[in-house]
C-alpha cells in the first residue's frame, strides 16, 4: 500500500507536479478540468485513467495532441468503467505472475460525464463496482449531454431546460426527477461513495485520498457547472459550485460501507434554490409566473433530502 501524499494546506498542494496539461480544448471556465487536476494532484502514485466519450475525452485527446501526462484510454461512451476494469485486471495478473511493467504503485481512475455514468454507462459502472475492481469512478456531473449541445440526461434536474427537454410555451423543461447515483452506488456495497464540488478543494482532495486508499470500487459524484450550457459567465464556475453546495442542491457528503452517512459540509447560511436558479440561464423560464411552482417544489425536495441526510448522520446507522 503506497503512502498517502501529505497535503497540509493549499500552498503545499501547489507543489504538485501537474499531470493534466493546458492547451486542451475545454471551454473557458470549464469545471471538468478543475476536478481532474484536483483528483490527479491528490496522489503522487502513477494513475491510469479511462474516460468515456464526452467533453473531457473529446477536448483532451484530439489527434495529434494529448493533454494527459499519464497513461490514458478512451474506448467509447458506455465503457469507461469496463475499460478500466480491464487495465486493473491486467495489472493484477502481471503482479501475480511477477511480470509487472512497473514497480511503482499504480492507481486506476475512470472519468465519465453524467451521460456516460447515469445513462449509457450505468451498466458497465454497476458491473465494475459489483466485481470490486480497485478503482475510483468520478462522474463529472454537468447534468446533461453538454458536449453535443446540451441534451437531457437522467441527471438533469426538474425544470432544467435542455435541447431535448426544452422550455416552451407549455413546458417548463425537464419533468423527471434527477436520479440519485450516490445512493445507488452506495447500495453496491462500495467501501466509500461521495459527492464533491471542485470549489471545495479540501473536501474533494480529502475524499479522493480516502478513495485512493480504499479497496474495491469507489464512486465520486462531482458537480461540474458548465458555463456553456448552464448559461452563466465563465468566470463564475466556482461561484456556481458554491451556490450549489450552499443551497444544498448538491450536498457534500459521503457514505461508507453502503450505509454510514457523514455530511462533510454544512453551510453557515443556507441559500435558497431560487438564488441557485437565478444565477443560471437554463432555469430562467422558471421565473415565469406559471412555472414558479417548480422552484417551490424543488425547494421542498431539497429541504427534505437535506433533513433526511442530517438525520441519517445523527442516527449513525
Amino acid at each position, binding site marked *: 500500500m503506497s503512502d498517502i501524499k501529505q497535503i497540509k494546506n493549499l500552498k503545499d498542494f501547489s507543489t504538485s507536479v501537474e499531470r493534466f496539461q493546458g492547451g486542451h480544448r475545454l471551454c473557458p471556465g470549464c469545471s471538468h478540468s478543475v476536478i481532474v487536476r484536483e483528483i490527479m494532484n491528490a496522489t503522487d502514485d*502513477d494513475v*491510469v485513467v*479511462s474516460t468515456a466519450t464526452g467533453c473531457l*475525452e*473529446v477536448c483532451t*485527446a*484530439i*489527434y*495529434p*495532441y*494529448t493533454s*494527459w*501526462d*499519464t*497513461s*490514458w*484510454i*478512451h*474506448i*467509447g461512451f*458506455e*465503457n469507461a468503467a*469496463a*475499460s*478500466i*476494469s*480491464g*487495465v*486493473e*485486471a*491486467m*495489472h*493484477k*495478473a*502481471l503482479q*501475480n*505472475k511477477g*511480470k*509487472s*511493467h*512497473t514497480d*511503482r504503485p*499504480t492507481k486506476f481512475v475512470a472519468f465519465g460525464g453524467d451521460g456516460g455514468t447515469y445513462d449509457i454507462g450505468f*451498466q*458497465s459502472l*454497476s*458491473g*465494475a463496482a*459489483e*466485481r470490486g475492481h480497485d478503482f475510483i469512478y468520478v462522474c463529472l456531473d454537468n447534468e446533461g449531454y453538454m458536449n453535443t449541445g446540451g441534451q437531457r440526461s437522467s441527471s438533469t434536474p426538474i425544470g432544467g431546460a435542455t435541447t431535448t427537454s426544452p422550455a416552451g410555451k407549455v413546458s417548463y423543461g425537464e419533468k423527471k426527477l434527477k436520479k440519485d447515483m450516490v445512493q445507488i452506488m452506495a447500495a453496491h456495497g462500495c467501501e466509500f461513495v461521495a459527492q464533491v464540488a471542485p470549489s471545495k478543494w479540501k473536501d474533494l482532495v480529502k475524499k479522493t485520498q480516502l478513495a485512493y486508499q480504499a479497496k474495491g470500487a469507489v464512486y465520486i459524484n462531482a458537480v461540474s457547472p458548465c458555463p456553456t450550457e448552464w448559461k452563466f459567465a465563465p468566470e463564475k464556475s466556482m461561484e456556481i459550485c458554491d451556490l450549489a453546495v450552499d443551497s444544498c442542491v448538491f450536498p457534500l457528503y459521503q457514505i461508507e460501507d453502503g450505509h454510514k452517512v457523514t455530511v462533510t459540509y454544512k453551510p453557515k447560511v443556507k441559500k435558497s434554490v431560487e438564488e441557485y436558479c437565478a444565477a443560471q440561464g437554463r432555469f430562467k423560464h422558471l421565473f415565469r409566473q406559471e412555472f414558479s411552482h417548480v422552484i417551490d417544489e424543488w425547494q421542498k425536495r431539497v429541504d427534505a433530502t437535506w433533513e433526511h441526510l442530517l438525520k441519517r448522520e445523527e442516527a449513525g446507522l
Partner: protein
Amino acid sequence: MANSIAPQKRVVWDGNMAASQAMRQAQIDVVAAYPITPSTPIVQNYAQFVADGEANGGEFVMVESEHSAMSACVGASAGGGRVATATSSQGYALMVEVLYQASGMRLPIVMNVVNRALASPLNIHGDHADMYLGRDAGWINLCAFNPQEAYDLNFIAFKTAEDLNVRLPVAVNQDGFLTSHTAEVVEHFDDADAYNFIGDFVNKNPMLDGVNPVTYGAQTEGEWHFEHKMRQNHALVESLDVIKANFDAFEKFSGRKYHAVETYLTDDADEIIVCIGSVFGTVQMTVDKLRSEGKKVGLVGIRVWRPFPKDEMAAAIKNAKSVAVLDRSAPMGTTGALYNEVAAVMVENGISVNLIDYIYGLGGRDTTAEHVTGIFADLKECSDAGKRVKPVMQTINLRGKTLTFY
C-alpha cells in the same frame, strides 16, 4: 528450435473444449468474458481451469455483458499483456462497436467466435450471421471447420495477432453446435510445446508502464481519420503474409498444414463448391463419392475470411467451368457476402466460370450429402450448357415454394 514435429496426444474433444484448451495453453493474462450459447462452455471450461489452478495465474473477469467483455479486453490489452475471450451471435452483435475500437487501436486480442444465427427471430443454432456482421470490423478472421482446427487455429491466432508487423485482433470462428458441441478426435500438444510455439507476449506501448505514459483512443478529425483507417486497412491486407508464414511454421511444429484457401481435388475439377465451416466435411465426403463415379468435382474452403485471400481464391477456381458458393447467412437485399468476394475475384482476374450462390443452413438447418449432390448436379447442367442456366441465388433445404433470386 527443434526440427521434428512436437509430440501429440489423441483425445476426444468438442470444438468448445478444443478452443478452451488452446486458450489454457496460451497462458493468457486476462480473459474477460460473458456466457452465451453456444460458446458458453468455452468460458465455463476456462473457469474450471482457473478454479483448478491451471490457468497460470491469469485473471478471469466475468463481466456483466459482452460489450463490457470486449471493453475490458481492450483495456487489458492496452494495459499490456495477452488477452482473449469468446462469444457468439447476440453477444458478438452487442460488442460489435468495440470490435472496431479494438482493431483501430491495433490491439492483439484473440476471440473464439462460435458462430450462431442472429435474432429476430431468436435462434441458438449455427450459421454465419455473426461472422458476416463483423466482416468490416478490421479483425483477422480465421475459420475452423472441425474441433482439430478450432484447437490449431488458436495458436496461429495468438502468434499472428502479437506479431509486431501485424498487431491486429484475431477471431477464430467455428460453427455453433455443429463444431462446438460435436466431439471428434483431436491431437493436442503438451503445455510447454504449445506455449513455446506462440512464445512470450511482446509488449508495445503498454499503458501500465508508468514511466512511458501513452494515450489510447484519441479522436481524429477530418484531416486525420482517413489516413488512420487506411493505415489499418493496409496492415490487415499485408497480414496475410504473416498468417501464411505462421501456417508454414505450424506445419513444421505439428505436421498439419493450413492454407489461406483450402483446396481439395480442384486441379482438374470442372465443378467446384466454395464454402466455410462444418459443411466442408459434408462436401468433401460427397466429392469423394462423386469422384469414385468419375465426376470431376472439387472443393474450396475459406480458411482466412479476412483479409480475403484474393490471389489464392483466383488460383483455386480459374480452371473450373462452374462454381457454387455457399453462404450461411441471409444476405438481406443482395447476394451472399462470400459469393460477392468470389465474383469480384473473377472480375479482377478475367476468370469466367458459371457462378451460383446458395443460401443454406440458417439456424442450424441440416445440409446433407444429398443436398450437396444436388448442387453439383446444378453446376453440371451449367457446365454442359456452357452458361449459367440456374438462377443467380438459390436456397437449400427450405420448406415451401421454391425460392430463388435474380
